[in-house]
């Protein structure tokens, strides 16, 4: 059982690195979907606390949302807004990849300094969930397009979910589902926003959103 948990956790970490080095938005959405599915499987493998939500239900909901609905919404936004396929990072892909390793080392350092309520947790759970969390934040900072920022947000949520699933057993899953609903709404709204930004400005580059200011003052 712990071996499977270990493999899922390492796969999540590798998907982080893949995400940082992949240049196509289409690939990024797929990676986020696979990672969401893997993370969604975690409640099935971790011992849940009595009185918590059934792990099967929680796992089903998160996999359904992150593995099916979000990718569908994002692919739809990609198609409707006619976005160019490249990711356009600040700083290039090799640097992003090395940052990924640095973020994992940071997560490792951070997880060594925490006190855990339960000594029998998978040793890799904390560092990888921190690394996933940092990767999400890094994607939001370093990728120019609105849609890649949404993907960064999803990765960030995967990190939080992994942390919750590994450390709090079933207790956190109710909270998780609430967060999932929030994110569902967020992705939905972002999809609409991306479409509208695209229709107004012919691009979805968030760097250029400051031009909005000029339009308002010129009126």
């Amino acid at each position, binding site marked *: 059982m712990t*071996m499977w948990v*270990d*493999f899922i956790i*390492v796969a999540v*970490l*590798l998907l982080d*690195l893949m995400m940082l*080095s992949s240049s196509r938005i289409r690939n990024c959405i797929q990676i986020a979907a696979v990672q969401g599915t893997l993370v969604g499987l975690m409640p099935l493998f971790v011992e849940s606390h009595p009185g918590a939500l059934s792990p099967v239900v929680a796992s089903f909901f998160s996999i359904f949302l992150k593995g099916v609905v979000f990718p569908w919404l994002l692919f739809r936004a990609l198609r409707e807004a006619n976005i160019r396929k490249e990711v356009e990072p600040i700083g290039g*892909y*090799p640097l992003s*990849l*090395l940052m*990924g*390793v640095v973020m*994992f*080392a940071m997560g*490792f350092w951070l997880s060594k300094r925490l006190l855990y309520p339960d000594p029998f947790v998978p*040793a*890799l759970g904390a*560092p990888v969930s921190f690394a996933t969390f940092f990767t999400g934040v890094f994607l939001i900072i370093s990728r120019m397009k609105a849609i890649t920022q949404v993907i960064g947000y999803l990765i960030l949520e995967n990190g939080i979910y992994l942390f919750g699933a590994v450390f709090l057993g079933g207790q956190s899953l109710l909270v998780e589902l609430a967060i999932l609903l929030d994110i569902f709404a967020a992705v939905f709204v972002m999809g609409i926003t991306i479409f509208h930004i695209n229709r107004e400005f012919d691009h979805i580059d968030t760097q250029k959103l400051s031009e909005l200011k000029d339009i308002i003052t010129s009126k």
Partner: protein
Amino acid sequence: MPAKIAQFILVLTLSPFLFGVLNRTKAFFAGRKGSPLLQLYYDIFKLLRKGAVYSTTTTWVFIAGPVVSLSAVITASFLIPWAGHPAVIQFDGDIILFIYLLGLARFFTVLAALDTGSSFEGMGASREMQFALFAEPALFLSLASLARVTGQMSFSGIFSTGVINFWPVYGPVFFLVFGAVFIVFLAENSRIPVDDPNTHLELTMIHEVMVLDHGGVDFAYILYGAAVKFWLLGTLLAGMFLGASSRGWMMDSAVFILQMSVLAVIVGVVESTLARLRLLKVPHFLIIALALSAVAFILTMRS
């Protein structure tokens, strides 16, 4: 001791054979019959009978290049264990000596290339050094991870503990290390995703362009050195699947030679199915190896 001498001689005699297996695999995928399995031996012996022509712009460095490279690689082969049996020489930290011996071999190849004063060879030299910049730390971190997992500091120690027994516990680490070492293996031996050994367009050649001006005996040394290097780095990959040695030296050796041939077939399949990477993408590919090995090393630090 006789076994140790035998295994040293086996490494030196069998390594060109792997290239035969590799070329046969590639020929099979291309639908050709392919060159004989012993083609590299024929080539080397043919070249050894020939004389060499030296350009007047070259100095002693050009002549020293192949000699130093080959002797560094052969020295390195003293350190590499055979099928889980200890190497001829072993001491704590011979991992580092091994990597620097390969570094010395590369350094002299590059010096000899620069000594010719040819602009194409200069380009090849610059690329070789740039890619080594990423490949070397990746190899270092991979071997350091193996050393940490097995608790041994020498090659013989690491590979005689029966590395395969560590897989169930350290599966993710070995998985990552294998990936990283495989990428380094392809890059160091100038195989396809990084460099194409068959290409003859100077603009995109890396390793082959550096040795264009060498001929005769010198070129035989270079070909032979490349074959031995292929064997040595391949040993690191095959060694990760070795059990603890128990079946006697002969049986272990047979299994090991089979493993190395399978490795050559795998490289042949990779070469036949993948396209070569764009030159600008190669550092990115090697950084993936670096990232994998760094992650593996961090994973060994848990507990």
